[in-house]
């Protein structure tokens, strides 16, 4: 695989580590489908998902998924007679794929923002990509497919001049004209052969999201968020028709080969076919359940595949001349259906900061374990809020990761700004680890997960004495990216041991990961500051003299349990009046000073009695409820 990195890469940006919790094979689209392409020769349908996966269906059966993007795939183009596929994604890359075998051949990182649209000139095997960075790049496909790891440079011509983000792009098969639609609310035309800017067509009132150009390059149809479809005569630079058949934004367009009819779809969930010679003739092809994102003809051009912001793809019969003449109604059921899966729409991290409660588009509630990177429980269609309440535990663990649902799957980010991925120290017992070296052994969630993610990577030698407590499935994608920016590298956890992958990882894995996943790295515990004050009932003769004057300001690890604090009180604060303490290594279970034992020390905070097993950060978060220093009171009770 070749990676093209034009320009100098700014390595100063902090690099984050992410993983996507998914199944070994994601057969169904999890979220909306942004683009469709048909290979008529093999009867294969390619669909570009918002879940970052391009799926291939042969005779409407799932063949394989093409996974390498890390964000929405916005557009795809099938070229070279179906041998190659070009894809554009919101991960800012354009990828070149071997369509038949389904692997990514190269990645183009020229765009600086989401790549929204592609256009293809079949006769010249040229593809153009455009996006929110306002630029259009023109690629020679034969050059792209010839790229190798050693020969990884490619020249591109850019079409400059667009003043705003481009959302749609179209080119005629001969590659003599290219049209872009943008938030400028205007169409811009270029000659791809000379890269010369030709003209600008004004008329739309809003963003232009869909475009088709006629074969000869003299006509163009545009669909806009203003709800209108406009037919333009490019020679006379005029809008010759305004078609108002939709009640909301027009997002998708398709024109028949002869440019006699236009098929449009949009936010109003309708697909409508309109006669361009007589625009009053229009027939509603279908009404979907969700806004229409893309359409493509079937091999015989008698029906269309329709994709929406929902995950299912349906095939609908197109009206014929007879329908137009006799004004017949269209069937209300699709010819065919490729069912989609459910996207995760809601996710809440539970208090233990390890389990995540999710709800998907079909209202199914499930529980995921971040440390094992898998779903641990399906709860079915239960009430999400109630489930969240039910699973509330009075335990406070600091945040150590971020989640995002943009792909419809759970993505866990480590090392993002403001969240310290190594802040969560928990006792091994609480983490469910049985055979720990010592009873009070502490483990760090962030460290555990990173160790699991890089388990197979040979770049880091883990201490052989320490066993791995958790492991992550090998199919889990591991993504290294700039915080809030572009993806640097994506690899499956199980593939990290490969030579190429190993070398690439050595280049990209940030130092903050390497220094921390080594077992012998310094443990940096989070400290909490607190005051200990005797309750008024504590007889003053029990207190050491100097303790009467002012409260002690103490510092401890935030996971210290109240029992430990009680031990400290017994040991250090309750004395026989002499200043010196009789050694700190007294066994807390045996009766100590003045014959009291630990169980007789009762700690309170905000007048609430504290459970001895509760740790200080939980007390601070749930009982003290303030960012100021915690104050605990102690008294002696008789048992």
């Amino acid at each position, binding site marked *: 695989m070749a990676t093209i990195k034009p320009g100098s890469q700014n390595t100063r940006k902090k690099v984050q580590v992410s993983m996507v919790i998914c199944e070994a094979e994601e057969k169904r689209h999890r979220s909306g489908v942004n683009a469709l392409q048909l290979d008529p020769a093999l009867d294969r349908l390619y669909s570009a998902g918002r879940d970052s996966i391009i799926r291939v269906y042969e005779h409407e059966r799932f063949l394989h998924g093409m996974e390498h993007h890390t964000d*929405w795939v916005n557009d795809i183009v099938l070229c070279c007679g179906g041998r190659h596929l070009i894809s554009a994604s919101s991960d800012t890359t354009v990828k070149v794929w071997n369509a038949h075998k389904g692997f990514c051949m190269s990645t183009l990182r020229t765009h600086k*923002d989401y790549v929204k649209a592609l256009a293809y000139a079949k006769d010249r095997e040229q593809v153009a990509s455009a996006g929110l960075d306002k630029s259009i790049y023109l690629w020679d496909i034969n050059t792209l497919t010839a790229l190798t790891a050693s020969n990884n440079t490619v020249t591109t011509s850019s079409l400059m001049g667009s003043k705003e983000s481009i959302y749609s792009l179209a080119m005629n098969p001969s590659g003599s004209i290219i049209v872009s639609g943008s938030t400028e609310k205007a169409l811009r035309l270029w000659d791809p052969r000379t890269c010369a800017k030709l003209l600008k067509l004004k008329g739309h009132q809003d963003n232009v999201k869909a475009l088709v150009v006629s074969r000869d390059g003299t006509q163009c149809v545009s669909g806009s968020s203003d709800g209108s479809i406009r037919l333009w005569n490019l020679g006379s630079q005029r809008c010759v028709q305004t078609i108002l058949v939709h009640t909301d934004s027009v997002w998708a367009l398709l024109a028949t080969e002869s440019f006699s009819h236009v098929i449009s779809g949009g936010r109003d969930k309708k697909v409508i076919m309109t006669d361009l010679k007589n625009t009053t003739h229009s027939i509603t092809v279908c009404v979907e359940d969700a806004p229409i994102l893309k359409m493509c003809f079937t091999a015989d051009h008698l029906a269309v595949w329709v994709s929406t912001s929902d995950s299912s793809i349906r095939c609908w019969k197109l009206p014929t001349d007879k329908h137009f003449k006799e004004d017949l109604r269209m069937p209300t059921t699709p010819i065919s259906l490729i069912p989609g899966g459910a996207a995760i729409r809601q996710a809440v991290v539970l208090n233990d900061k390890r389990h995540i409660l999710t709800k998907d588009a079909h209202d199914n509630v499930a529980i995921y374990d971040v440390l094992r990177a898998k779903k641990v429980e399906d709860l079915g269609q239960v009430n999400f809020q109630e489930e969240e309440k039910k699973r509330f535990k009075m335990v406070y663990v600091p945040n150590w990761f971020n989640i995002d649902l943009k792909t419809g799957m759970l993505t866990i980010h480590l090392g993002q700004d403001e969240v310290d991925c190594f802040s969560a120290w928990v006792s091994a017992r609480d983490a469910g680890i049985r055979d720990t070296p010592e009873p009070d052994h502490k483990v760090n969630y962030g460290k555990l997960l990173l160790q699991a993610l890089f388990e197979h990577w040979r770049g880091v030698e883990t201490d052989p004495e320490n066993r791995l407590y958790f492991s992550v499935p090998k199919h889990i994608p591991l993504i290294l990216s700039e915080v809030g920016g572009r993806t640097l590298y994506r690899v499956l956890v199980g593939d990290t041991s490969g030579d190429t992958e190993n070398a690439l990882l050595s280049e990209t894995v940030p130092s903050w990961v390497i220094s921390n996943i080594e077992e012998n790295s310094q443990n940096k515990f989070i400290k909490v500051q607190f005051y200990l004050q005797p309750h008024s009932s504590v007889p003053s003769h029990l207190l050491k003299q100097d303790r009467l004057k002012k409260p002690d300001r103490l510092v401890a690890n935030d996971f210290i349990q109240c029992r430990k604090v009680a031990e400290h009180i017994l040991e250090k604060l309750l004395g026989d009046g002499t200043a010196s303490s009789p050694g700190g290594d007294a066994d807390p279970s045996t009766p100590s000073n003045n014959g009291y034992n630990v169980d007789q020390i009762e700690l309170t905070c905000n007048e609430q009695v504290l459970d001895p097993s509760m740790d200080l950060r939980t007390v601070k978060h749930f009982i003290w409820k303030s960012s100021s220093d915690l104050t605990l009171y102690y008294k002696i009770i008789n048992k």
Partner: protein
Amino acid sequence: MTILENDVIPTRNKLSLSKAKYKTGEQIKRKYIFEEDSIPAKKPALNEMLNGYRGDQRSNGEASHDAPVATLSNMGNTCFLNSVLYTLRFAPTFLHNLHHLIGDLAVVSSKLNQNKAKTSSLGRNIGSITGPSSRSTSSKDLLSLGSSNDIIPKSKVQVVTEKLHELFMTMHNLEIKESNDPYQPVALLQAVREANSIFEGNNQQDAHELLVYLLDNIRETCDVLTQQVQQNPELLHETETLPTVNSNKIWSVRNSWKKSLKKKDKATKEAISEEQVNGAHTADGEDSTSIDSSNGSLIKRKLGYNFVAEDFEGITLRRTKCLECESVTERKEPFYDIPVPISPISQKDNEEDNVSDIFRRACVTTEKLCDSNKYLCEKCERYNEASREVLFEKLPNIMVLQLKRFTTTTSGVQKVNTYLPTPLALECFCESCCKVEDNQSRIHRYKLCCVIMHLGGTMASGHYIAYVKASDHLEDYTDCSRDLPKGSLSASSSEKSLNILKFLKPRSFGNSLIDGRNGLSSRSVNGIRMCKSVDCCGVKINKNVVENVINSFPRKNAQDYKWHQSNPSSEDMWLECDDENVRAITTQEFVEELANKPNSTSTPYLLFYAKITDQDRCVPLGLPMAELQRTNIFTKLDQWL
């Protein structure tokens, strides 16, 4: 210039404080009115004489020490305070509403104290409040009830609001006495500093910050009052269940009317004899009683009436549309003032564009959230491009535009002196007005009522001057439902009086107001009852001083202004309030002051616009009188522009 001048006003400076001068002024004015009304042909001649005199006097450097209103002295870098105080004082409806807030506060706190104290029987208590015997309740008593024997501790916030009212009362008294001694608003400044530490020290402060702080303060006070009423619903019930109220009502009202008339005379005498200095002024005995004797629902409506929210607060609407899924989210936020960014206006813009468009474009904005500033769309669960519109669902009755003259740069806060026109009338740019087609008239319009100018190169070293429309705002006090005794004025009679007003030209109405003598003005003007609070803390412009300026207006410049066809009237007058120096200026002079002066560092900073709702559309609740008057004034303004 001419010999005649000496005959008109002899030795003016010597008479500044005497009654003789007062009479002279009155004579002149009467003569002037007479001339104008009956023998228009002679008017120019007279004006020339008067103008000649005035122009001469000014050129001689004998600057008038006569201020048309009470003045505030600078206590060392307190021009920021003074300019805001002048502005608030002349902001339409402000004084009147503040007065009632203080009155309501006193009523509520005294009742709460009574309820807590329970020193006497319930019935007697109420009787003493609602009955005629309560006439002695002066504003002093009400305030002292709130401060000294208060069981409920008073917040610093409330103290500031009360001190503000006290200051306005003092200024009112000074005006009645026609005193020209500048007053030091020490007590208020003290209270402000105690309540908010940022105003501590003798440094120059941002007038805008103080304005927002004071408004916030009053709003908070209103909220406290509302809370007290809500927490003690019995405050409303007690009066409702009292059977004696109805039977006593008419009598008590009549009695109070007579009594207060008598009291008025007394009050004036007292004022003249200079006995009352600080806030001790009898006027609003009726305030408490009228509220008490009315029914419970009215109290509920009126007590804690949050006039700051009503008059100064607008609502911005932030409409964000994700460019991916195109779903729209709206967020509403209340605001006091609108920051107006200052961008250089090309000469072309200035000439061809409507000035209102400059402000509309600066305030109603559309922004694209893109690049590294993308919008987290809740529906797409990701960062997408979005368009964000900022528009105004509601613009306040008194709209404050804060010109962003101070920008923070790496080298500290810098002042932008770029010229931005200050129109006397401004088209409304609220959402519904923006939807109106260009050829149709908008629902609301605005007219300039106050301006705070900032003079100087930096915020720390500069000086503030306030310009206010010279008006008593008597229209604010008419038809006041919180003051007029119930029963004496039926709905039909008030309607009738309104109709009378409709036929009155604003000019003659204004003159009749001038006729009402300082301190002696009755609460009835042309048969219209005035809220008595006008005699507590209302503005009393010394008409003579204003008239002198009007009469001496230099004619020679008149031709320069196409709109200026006749002499300025009292409605064309503005007051330039520069600490202890307050002088009346004509609109023409004011416009010159606002005009573009190259390299000048004296720039308008805060612009106050009063809302005008067109008559043919729905007239909002509140003060229809005021609306009528303002609309008339507006048509005049419209002609000028």
